[in-house]
């Protein structure tokens, strides 16, 4: 017992000393804390490319910005914010989450300098998407444009197919492909715990084309119910494709079980059986390596054709907005850096990203496909943000996703839409 108490005493004294030493060290490090923590949802290759951008900032400014991505970002950021241990900057994919954080006072408004930069270098729509309650919180950096149809150029041209300009031409093309023994579409909904977003993207694209941007906005803001005839009409357009096993490779089971990234791969199988995949610009990163290496020769792309001439060919897009949780030194500088083309050019050169910056040089894009898409995005007369990211999470990340899955799985359009309507929070 004596020995034991001596050992205990020794350890305790040792720990007291250690605490003292460390507490001394604390004061010094806190004063020169140059680390800026950035947290977001994207990982892997995308994160590696963003790290390159951060490196430029760090070299220029002397700060140490560090990016970390998590597949559970949406949950984690919430927990961190509520626990009072948020990152310094976060990249939020959904404007709805930004509204919540702004409401709760978790995020800080941007400095007037950064807002000035946004005014100068972005179309007004991006500032609106980053604002809540009269204050601007978010800076958009890399964005995506989703209304595009990708096709295997060589096989497509060898069969003599023409790029459709209108929905009727698209229908004719579909039937022609079926007659030739192929499948028009490869569609994959699977995406881990976000399964279904590919379906909602399709739906939004068609809504913009059949009902126009005003009705689209009413739909997003729940000024018309989710089971409104205009929405039903859009869903029926989708059903024509989704529910016809001749039009979709593998039919409904394939749609539901195939990962969105894998769904583009059959386009490049030899011999070609599948000809089209509707997806955002980021899909090029999921194509087989040999195709990626010869993107311009192997891949063709066209915007999803117009349905009603009145609304032309609108562009649907999305993107992460960066918001500030801690207004410590360097953070506003980083936000300012994101508004400049200097932060976009290196990524544009490697590919896989689009930017909304007005000051961008289209020649910086590494290939002609992305150059065209970037031009289409900046010049679009009608641009709308991904509706499901704007709707409340119960719908946008819940019943709308599951509704699309159930629709493909055989549930009738009417009950799908009325179920989503019922789930809208009151």
């Amino acid at each position, binding site marked *: 017992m004596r020995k034991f108490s001596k050992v*205990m005493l020794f350890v305790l004294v040792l*720990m007291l000393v250690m605490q003292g030493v460390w507490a001394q060290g*604390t004061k010094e490090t806190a004063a020169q804390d140059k680390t800026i923590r950035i947290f977001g949802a994207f990982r892997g290759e995308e994160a590696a490319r963003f790290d390159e951008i951060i490196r430029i900032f760090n070299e220029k400014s002397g700060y140490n910005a560090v990016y970390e991505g998590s597949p559970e970002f949406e949950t984690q950021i919430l927990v961190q914010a509520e626990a009072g241990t948020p990152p310094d900057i976060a990249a939020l994919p959904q404007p709805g989450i930004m509204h919540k954080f702004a409401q709760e006072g978790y995020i800080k408004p941007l400095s007037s300098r950064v807002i000035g930069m946004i005014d100068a270098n972005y179309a007004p729509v991006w500032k609106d998407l980053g604002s809540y309650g009269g204050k601007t919180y978010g800076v958009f950096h890399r964005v995506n444009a989703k209304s595009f149809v990708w096709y295997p150029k060589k096989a497509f041209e060898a069969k003599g197919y023409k790029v459709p300009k209108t929905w009727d031409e698209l229908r004719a093309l579909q039937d022609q492909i079926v007659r030739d023994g192929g499948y028009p579409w490869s569609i994959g909904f699977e995406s881990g715990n976000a399964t279904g977003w590919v379906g909602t993207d399709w739906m939004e694209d068609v809504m913009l084309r059949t009902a126009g941007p005003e009705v689209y906005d009413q739909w997003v803001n729940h000024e018309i119910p989710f089971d409104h005839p205009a929405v039903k009409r859009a869903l029926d357009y989708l059903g024509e494709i989704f529910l016809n096993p001749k039009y979709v490779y593998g039919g409904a089971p*394939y749609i539901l079980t195939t990962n969105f990234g894998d769904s583009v791969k059959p386009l490049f199988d030899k011999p070609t059986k599948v000809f089209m995949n509707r997806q955002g610009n980021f899909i090029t990163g999921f194509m087989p390596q040999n195709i990626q290496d010869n993107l311009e020769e192997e891949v063709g792309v066209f915007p999803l054709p117009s349905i009603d001439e009145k609304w032309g060919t609108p562009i649907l897009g999305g993107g992460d907005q960066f918001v500030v949780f801690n207004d410590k030194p360097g953070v506003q500088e980083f936000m300012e850096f994101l508004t400049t083309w200097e932060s976009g050019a290196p990524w544009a050169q490697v590919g896989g990203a689009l930017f909304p910056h007005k000051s961008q040089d289209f020649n910086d894009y590494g290939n002609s496909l992305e150059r065209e898409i970037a031009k289409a995005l900046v010049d679009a007369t009608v641009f709308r943000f991904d509706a499901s990211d704007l709707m409340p999470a119960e719908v946008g990340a819940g019943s709308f996703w599951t509704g699309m899955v159930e629709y493909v799985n055989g549930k009738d359009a009417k009950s799908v839409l009325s179920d989503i309507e019922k789930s809208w929070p009151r």
Partner: protein
Amino acid sequence: MQIQRDRERKELVVRTVVFTPFSIIVMVGGFLLLRNNPMSQILTTLFAIVWGTFSVLALFYSMNLIVQLFPTRKYNKIIPFVFVGPAILIIGWYLLIPTVRSLVLSFMNRNSTAFAGLENYKYIFTDSTMRTAFGNTVLWLLFGTAFAVFFGLLTALMAERSAIEKLGKTLVFLPMGISMVGAGVIWKFMYAYKPVGANQTGLLNALVVAFGGEPKSWLGTAPMNNFFLIIIFVWLQTGFSLVVLAAALKGVSEEIKEAARIDGAKEFTVLMKIVLPSIYGSIVTVSTTIMLAALKSFDIVYSMTNGLYGTEVLASQQYKQMFKFLDYGRGSAIAIIILLAVSPVIYYNLKEFNKREVF
């Protein structure tokens, strides 16, 4: 005699006076230090482990010293509380307070800003997704538990008579070492679907196609997909029931079995009339333990289907309402329902646990 006792007492007082303030300073100082979080992750972890361990030892040691200053009779009365007290306080802090808080939140609106009455509970019992979740949870409870216990018992009985007892048991027990999410990832490959004509990467569909059938989307068609998920659960839990039941079987008296056989009982009768009644207690404990796991089952559903295609269960709905839809009211209400459903099972389990020494 008196002198020696006085000396011991003096020494005790000195030790208490020296030791107790030290412990308090270390405990509070370490806590404050950790809260300020000045060190790198590795240093923090190392410090927390060393500090935590020694703080606990120091706490008990110095409390014991203090209580020793009392006369022996009082010491005997106080000391049990000293030893159990901290544990009860910590459990109360981590379990009791959150439970009460969940109960309160379950009667509040989604941001917990206003009282909502029974609105959340009304939602739980009327919403169609919630009804599916209830139905599926019952499926999990019934079939998950029944099959896991049945197969565990079957393998235990067979292993007893088999030459490869150890190998067989090891193989059945092996999946216990795999996490539920890990199992989900593995079984995704079993159930994978590719269209007709393409190479089937999923084992099940490869077999079906090899025998001339058409590939199926196993996880996409309700209500069968629930059973495909439950199979994974059974695969994981059978090992647990096997181990416990095999141990219990070893305890069944050979003499009674022998006596029954001499009296002319068939093997099946021996099993039904002697073996099973003798291990009844173990069967109940295994069943209730697996039932608890089935009630809480979340990982498999989350990693395999995320509740799509009609596979939602209560736990996955709770997670979604709470962390995805940010509806703290509904999320908490579902948590309370699960707690209520679990409570009788836990109560029964503990009662059995106390009555017989099953493990």
